């Protein structure tokens, strides 16, 4: 499968112009990333980016968001290449392209049942205010540190902690449960 992907990616054509030696010259936006380099980048960041964006934009807009983010990465490779946390940056890019008035959904099947998970938790998680949902999703759904979350949300780490704490309290309250490990 990876070999096929590599084969597909090897024929990159950049915009409307020229493709020489793995470099692209574009009329308006340029990227100086080689095919192989960008492929490695995509393979490394796409799963984490997709998971993070899923909780933020839902399945309806997930592929648009991921696609826009990766296209942005290609077009602005020089900006991304030196970043310590490119996934965080691309998360913001993807999120900004997927603003929607609809409540995001995590599953296509509305009646999904996950072992060991309270049946109502998915619904309650989605119903949280966006800031709380995003913070909880990134922290506990994706395992991000509060500093990284603060960076992508444009808030302080203490505010992230507040959002996470309040959101979890709300979920526990709505579920009527008391976590034994708190």
């Amino acid at each position, binding site marked *: 499968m990876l070999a*096929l992907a590599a*084969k597909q990616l090897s024929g990159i054509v950049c915009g409307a112009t020229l493709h020489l030696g793995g470099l692209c010259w574009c009329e308006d936006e340029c990227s100086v990333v080689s095919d192989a380099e960008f492929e490695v980048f995509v393979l490394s960041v796409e799963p984490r980016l997709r998971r993070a964006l*899923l909780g933020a934009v839902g399945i*309806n807009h997930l*592929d*648009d968001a991921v696609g826009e983010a990766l296209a942005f990465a290609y077009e602005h490779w020089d900006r991304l290449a030196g970043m310590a946390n490119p996934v965080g940056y691309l998360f913001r890019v993807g999120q900004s392209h997927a603003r929607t008035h609809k409540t995001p959904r995590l599953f296509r099947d509305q009646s999904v049942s996950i072992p060991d998970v309270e049946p109502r938790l998915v619904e309650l998680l989605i119903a949280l205010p966006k800031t709380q949902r995003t913070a909880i999703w990134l922290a*506990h759904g994706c395992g991000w540190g509060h500093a990284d979350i603060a960076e992508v949300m444009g808030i302080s780490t203490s505010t992230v902690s507040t959002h996470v704490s309040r959101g979890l309290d709300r979920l526990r309250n709505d579920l009527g449960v008391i976590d*034994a490990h708190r």
Partner: protein
Amino acid sequence: MLTVEEQVRLIADAAMVALDLDTAAARRATPRETVLDHMPVADTSSPVQFTEEVVTMIDVKTTDPTEPRQKRPMRVVVAGILAGVVAVVAIAFVVIRDADDVTPADEPSTTVPPTTPPRALPNTSPGGLEPGTYFVDEVTGTPTARILFTIGAGWHAQRGPGIGQFDIGQILFSRPYGVFSDACHAGPAADPELVTLDGLVAALSEQRGWADVTTPSDISIDGYAGKAFQRTVPAEISDCEKTVYGPRTRPANWFTKSPRFRSWEGYEDGLSELYEPGEVETLWVLDIDGTVVVIHTRLLPSVTTGGRALAGPSAAARAEFAAVLDSIRIERG
């Protein structure tokens, strides 16, 4: 008992697994994108009734093979634009048949009388559908009266729900959530939801950006009233908003932005229709017991792209699509 934090982690894990499975299945079953270039010919014996104007409109057209096409047709299941980037590219590579394999049958496959009871149309059918009669009784999460249709050989199921033939076209059952005001520069979808027949028909037929839209005409299928009309995409859409397309249709430069032309935002399935320059789409918009359903047919045009010549649907293939549409029945509950 797991903590809420641990449960959130499990939800994320499950959502990603479901997404991967869903995307892979959709990719295996979805044909390369489709274009709609024809409308079914109504049979006087069919319960599908058209006004004279519609009957004229649905005459099978022949695509001019010399007509320039800029892009391969593409219907981006939004869950497909870059879904599972690498995995999807690989799956799409398998799905897309080589042009040499595109040999539309000289004769339309015979519509096989059902020898078994009508079957529910599956979401996907990697191995193709058996000839026979199928039904749809739910469109993007909303139950509807049972919509039946009969197919011959060579069809597969795809999410939509719908059916298609690789490199030829597809027939989809859709429920638009919000219609964009301009298909060339989509922007945010219309809000609130368009839930009435007249409202949806007006939004679709008055949408800006199309080169031509025929006047909606009355139709009736088994007593369910609706409207039928065709829309034609401009031959040139390079000035339209740009985005990345799915690797299935642009395998060599999937992350380079290209113009997109789209009409509506899918309901809850994330589907979004992207159209090809010059494409003609035929729509039946029906009010089925209060649920507005769009049955739209899209046929691949002839196109040469990436050094590959795709013939587009033959007259026989068009006739086969028309026959399937002609077979549509709706059972009253």
